[in-house]
């Protein structure tokens, strides 16, 4: 590997941070799409120079951007500048941002307990296919899963998820009713996992046609039945590609683990100072080494005691060690959001995370030590890293 590229989505634009394999000296480019909220930027595993970005605005709605040259230039798929505005068969272009629910959208539970119609708001997460550079999955708010098979020119809902008979019981978390996690099983193209705040985790074994909740073992005191089938505020799920039936979850409270593809979960919070948090990730080469960033509580979204600490477990949970070298240990009151942590596949494994204070921290030694790549970006919404050939 010759280097890495860290793709950072922020409240006011996207940034690309690049370095060689040593990961000590960094070049920062951006802001791209300045002034827009960039919820997520992610590259295709098949073609690392093909990037997809979710660009959103309360004013102007959703935009999907694509780059085919590693982020040097971007375009809205289907509408490159200077090209015809209709397809050869006369169909209008400009549908790369058209996310329309399949059929009658129906309703879900609102904050006050009433039913509320499904309304598309934005794309939270883009998950490119493991095998096809033109196929990408999009997790959206209000919660649904969409897919493109033409490189982002048009999107279609995999509506079996939203039409699950528990849909009316799903409810928004504080950040909205978002589908924020999409995990593709590298050993079984028919199997996917997704997670929704606040509905829980779901799995499909038929390529997205049908879904079922996989929340057994989750316990959430903030819903009327703490052991309900749905309603759990799952913040993030992570998987190591070599063990696709083992998942690690950071829930609203509790760090959880399953070893049977979500059939049952067990808590592995162990000695964490608090088990509230947002991101969770797995070491690229050690499937039992996992990382979380504990946050004080659901009502105080900052690190306990003003100390920014990453916790690492080399035992797949329960036993956690504190990682602080290079991280601020006083007066630090930032948060790390659910999509704002990523790992690279270099040796040793690199870990990256971004904060709501605009810092992006990197560790080139699997978390033993950290240094900021940048300190003063807008609030960081997402971090992805690519190892470049």
């Amino acid at each position: 590997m010759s280097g890495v590229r860290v793709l950072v989505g922020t409240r006011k634009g996207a940034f690309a941070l690049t370095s060689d394999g040593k990961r000590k000296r960094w070049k920062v480019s951006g802001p791209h799409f300045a002034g827009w909220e960039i919820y997520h930027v992610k590259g295709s595993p098949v073609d690392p120079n093909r990037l997809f970005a979710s660009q959103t605005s309360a004013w102007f709605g959703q935009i999907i951007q694509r780059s085919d040259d590693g982020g040097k230039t971007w375009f809205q798929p289907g509408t490159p500048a200077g090209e015809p505005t209709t397809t050869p068969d006369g169909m209008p272009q400009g549908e790369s941002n058209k996310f329309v629910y399949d059929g009658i959208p129906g309703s879900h539970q609102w904050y006050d307990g009433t039913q509320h119609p499904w309304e598309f708001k934005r794309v939270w997460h883009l998950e490119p296919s493991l095998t096809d550079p033109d196929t990408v999955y999009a997790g959206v708010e209000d919660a649904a899963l969409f897919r493109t098979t033409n490189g982002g020119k048009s999107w279609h809902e995999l509506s079996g998820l939203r039409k699950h008979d528990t849909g009316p019981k799903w409810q928004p978390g504080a950040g909205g009713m978002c589908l924020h996690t999409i995990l593709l099983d590298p050993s079984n193209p028919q199997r996917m996992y997704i997670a929704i705040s606040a509905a829980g985790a779901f799995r499909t074994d038929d390529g997205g046609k049908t879904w079922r909740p996989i929340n057994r073992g989750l316990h959430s005191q903030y819903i009327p039945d703490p052991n309900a089938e749905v309603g759990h505020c799952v913040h993030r799920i992570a998987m190591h590609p070599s063990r696709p039936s083992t998942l690690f979850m950071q829930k609203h409270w509790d760090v959880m683990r399953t070893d049977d593809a979500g059939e049952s979960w067990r808590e592995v919070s162990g000695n964490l100072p608090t088990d509230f948090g947002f991101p969770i990730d797995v070491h690229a080469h050690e499937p039992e080494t996992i990382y979380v960033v504990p946050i004080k509580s659901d009502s105080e979204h900052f690190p306990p005691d003003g100390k920014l600490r990453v916790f690492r477990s080399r035992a797949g949970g329960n036993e956690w060690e504190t990682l602080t070298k290079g991280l601020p240990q006083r007066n630090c009151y930032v948060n790390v959001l659910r999509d704002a942590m990523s790992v690279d596949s270099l040796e040793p494994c690199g870990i990256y995370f971004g904060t709501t204070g605009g810092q992006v921290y990197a560790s080139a030694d699997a978390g033993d030590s950290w240094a900021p790549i940048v300190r003063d970006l807008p609030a960081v919404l997402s971090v992805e890293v690519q190892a470049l050939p």
Partner: protein
Amino acid sequence: MIRVLLPPHLRTLARVDGEVQLDVEGPATQRSVLDALEANYPMLRGTVRDHVTQERRSLVRFFACGQDVSHEPPDAPLPAEVANGSEPFLVIGAIAGG
């Protein structure tokens, strides 16, 4: 020729500087102007009005000749000065947020 002034973010998406000039078929109305805008700049579809309902996005406003015409019916005639090109049709991002 209808002149349309877009907000900066939409000018960036459309890759234009300054005003956009559009040939509009038939009477100049919000609908006919936006139809022409989207036909010429398909990357703007969905950003000013909803893809499906064609309703104005809630934080987008339309001004013409010193008047807020956002709440006029989409097929109501725009002022003659807009229709004859002496005044622009302004698409505005509402003052909200930070």
